[in-house]
């Protein structure tokens, strides 16, 4: 893939410091990096690994509150750490370009897309305005944007997210740079949109033989894009190897553990049989709307005791709205929700204390789900006190018991505040708070999507154990099909407020599928480096671009 083997970028012992609490703290501890012309390097790591900071440093740039404190960055023979700011500026945009995570926020809302595109080529006197615009249109065409002749004359907010991300890639290409830094370019996109952007980026980088640093936290994505993968952890390099080798035989324990994450899978349970088997929660034909826009249309499904129903869909599919209807936060406009055969009042204000107790919720963002000013013991203790009237030592022993259940040592965590805990620990506290009410049905809203993969796996295992222990029913809202595969018994697929398909998990994962389920399933990147290529061949190129980008 990399025909010319001369070195373009050579980073040695890079150290970067960040300013916090009135002092400079080192956040990148001596990273080395070598990139040849035309080569794509994948930087992978969990949040806080310093990936973006390193990516920006490759442009000689440090964000406000950060500084490059040591090491050397040599770009095509030029030492960037000692180059003046104006010389560095001359490099940026022309020889090194940057593609940011959120295209919607990174395009200036006040100017048309094409004017932002042509800014760099005009400034560097590479092209005149008209030439630059024509070139932009050609790039748009190569990136398979719809209406390449016209789309650039729109303002950023008039264009969809996936298209904007491709327009930004085109903008990075405007001066035909030697190196492009891609900083999580598809993280904010839905899986079906992600595919086109990935394909577009890979094509164009290939065509112009541009070198790239591809930053992401998603292994399967980086496997499609990179020639070489470098794994980072907390600002240090763990290991680096060519993609195939890295996927097949990772050396370090940390890398192996990352690779192994998706292996957790528990056997699928079947619905209880017999005439008196009754679903614990039964959603019957609910419809709901925000103002005039209808967001749920005839949604029905059942959840049986001790089982996990995964509700899957992309953003805007109505899966979280369904949860809001069940909890009573958003009363449905028609249809009803039965709990153990009894209809639940649509508004939570009208429900009895016992009805409220039975249905509990675990949230996606543990940071906002736990009150930072309340101690752990009170967060967990309050439901026990509120519903069961526990006081004094009885309450304390109940809290201890709950902390034991979520595998946090009571003596250590009892009187701490949430801010002193890690992300995974906070999520465990959220689980304990739900358990404290002694519920029979728990809604898990994307509980693992904000967590790093290893931590997420721990949470899934914990939820599974608790389910067996207390015969809990889960409604598991997620967009991540890997999670569905590992823990679901039944799957409900939603699209635009409707249930597209539902059934037992094994059935759902074996063809034939509903076309949307098929699109969803096939769009999830796999750890095989040839996955994207073969998928594109399978779908045929004409489909790309129209697939889901409506």
């Amino acid at each position, binding site marked *: 893939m990399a025909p010319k083997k001369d070195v373009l970028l050579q980073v040695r012992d890079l150290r970067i410091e960040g300013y916090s609490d009135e002092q400079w703290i080192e956040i990148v501890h001596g990273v080395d990096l070598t990139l040849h012309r035309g080569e794509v390097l994948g930087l992978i790591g969990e949040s806080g690994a310093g990936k973006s900071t390193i990516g920006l440093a490759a442009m000689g*740039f440090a964000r406000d509150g950060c500084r490059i404190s040591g090491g050397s960055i040599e770009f095509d023979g030029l030492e960037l750490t000692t180059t003046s700011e104006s010389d560095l500026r001359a490099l940026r945009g022309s020889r090194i*370009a*940057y593609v*940011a995570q959120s295209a919607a*926020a*990174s395009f200036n*809302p*006040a100017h048309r897309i094409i004017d932002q595109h042509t*800014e760099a080529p005009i400034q560097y006197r590479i092209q005149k305005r008209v030439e630059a615009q024509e070139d932009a249109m050609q790039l748009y065409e190569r990136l398979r944007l719809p209406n390449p002749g016209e789309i650039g004359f729109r303002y950023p907010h008039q264009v969809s997210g996936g298209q904007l991300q491709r327009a930004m890639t085109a903008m990075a290409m405007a001066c035909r740079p030697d190196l492009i830094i891609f900083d999580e370019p598809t993280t904010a996109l839905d899986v079906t949109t992600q595919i086109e952007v990935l394909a577009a980026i890979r094509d164009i980088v290939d065509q112009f033989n541009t070198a790239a640093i591809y930053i992401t936290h998603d292994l399967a994505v980086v496997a499609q894009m990179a020639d070489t993968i470098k794994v980072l952890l907390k600002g240090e390099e763990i290991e680096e190897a060519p993609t195939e080798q890295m996927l097949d035989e990772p050396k370090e324990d940390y890398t192996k553990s990352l690779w192994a994450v998706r292996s957790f899978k528990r056997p699928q349970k079947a619905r209880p049989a017999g005439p008196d088997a009754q679903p614990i929660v039964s959603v019957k034909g609910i419809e709901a709307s925000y103002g005039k826009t209808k967001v749920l249309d005839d949604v029905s499904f059942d959840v049986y005791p001790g089982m996990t129903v995964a509700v899957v869909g992309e953003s805007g599919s109505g899966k979280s709205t369904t949860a809001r209807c069940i909890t009573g936060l958003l009363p449905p406009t028609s249809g009803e929700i039965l709990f153990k055969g009894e209809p639940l009042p649509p508004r939570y204000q009208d429900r009895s204390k016992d009805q409220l107790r039975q249905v509990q919720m675990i949230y996606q963002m543990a940071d906002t789900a736990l009150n930072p000013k309340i101690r752990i013991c009170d967060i967990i203790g309050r439901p026990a006190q509120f519903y069961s009237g526990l006081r004094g030592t009885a309450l304390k022993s109940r809290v201890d018991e709950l902390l034991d259940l979520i595998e946090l040592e009571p003596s250590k965590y009892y009187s701490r505040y949430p801010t002193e805990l890690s992300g995974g620990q906070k999520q465990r506290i959220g689980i304990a708070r739900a358990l404290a009410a002694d519920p029979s049905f728990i809604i898990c809203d994307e509980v693992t999507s904000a967590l790093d993969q290893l931590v997420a796996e721990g949470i899934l295992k914990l939820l599974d154990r608790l389910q067996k222990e207390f015969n809990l029913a889960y409604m598991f809202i997620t967009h991540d099909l890997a999670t569905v595969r590992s823990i679901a018994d039944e799957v409900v697929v939603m699209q635009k407020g409707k249930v597209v398909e539902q059934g037992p998990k094994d059935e759902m994962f074996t063809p034939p599928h509903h076309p949307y389920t098929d699109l969803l399933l096939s769009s999830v990147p796999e750890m095989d480096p040839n996955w994207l290529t073969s998928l594109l061949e399978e779908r045929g190129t004409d489909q790309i671009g129209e697939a889901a980008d409506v």
Partner: protein
Amino acid sequence: MGDILQLVLRRLGLGLITLFVVSILIFFAVELLPGDIAQAVLGQGATAETVAALREKLGLNDPAFIRYFHWLGGALTGDFGVSLVSGERVSDAISTRFRNTLFLATYAAVIAVPLSIFLGIIVALLRNTLFDRVANVLTLTSISSPEFFLGYILILYLAVKTNYFPAIASLSADMSFGDLLHRTFLPALTLVLVVTAHMMRMTRAAIINLLASPYIEMARLKGVPPWKVIVRHALPNAWAPIINVVALNLAYLITGVVLVEVVFVYPGIGQLLVDAVAKRDFPIVQACCLIFAATFILLNLAADVGSILTNPRLRHPK
């Protein structure tokens, strides 16, 4: 453009309603008087006949809401009734003074607005340097000082001790424009000092807020030179906050003007209001309050309409 027109019209409608409610408030506040106006004006010692006579003269025997519409109708045509103290028509007392006040406020605004926006942008660019910190302390000090403190300091050092400017800003009809500017320089400067500090701080905050957005970082990563980042990328998005800052501070000038007029014995509407309050001359108080409130509401309205019109997302709808 339909969206924008609708938003602007809605905002204008809201402004009108607010003005209407405020006029009700101003009128009926006087109705809260223990007893009524006639009693209050004549005092406890007045005989029943004189009170009744005055009541008749002021038309107080009509129901309150009829008098309100009468008053509002008059106010809309520039007729605010008759002063209780001097018997002069309120509109006569107000008209020249209102012009004087407007002149003073405009004088201050013409200096303060460009100066503070310029300084605000500079301070935002030099943020977290020594210059920024000194500016922060100075502007905070200026904001914290009452107008009369600044006014008297200026009088002491620029009028009494050095005689550069007159301490009392009296006006006469036959003054040349240069003379006028010289005479009213100290009150204008006092207003400028207070308002500039406010505006500078708010402009700084607005610009810094903007400079943190991802598209500014993107522009810098495209190699756009710093001046162009500000002029081409930040400024088109900064109009809305800057317009707001300006309008808010012009509105603030209105309050400041009352105190400054008293300090410099300037024949403006503010001083008239203060005198009228002391003498409990309600028609004048009501008229002045309505004029001040209307100006205030109009400025806020202008700010909102301005930010709607400069918002790129609204100007180019989907």
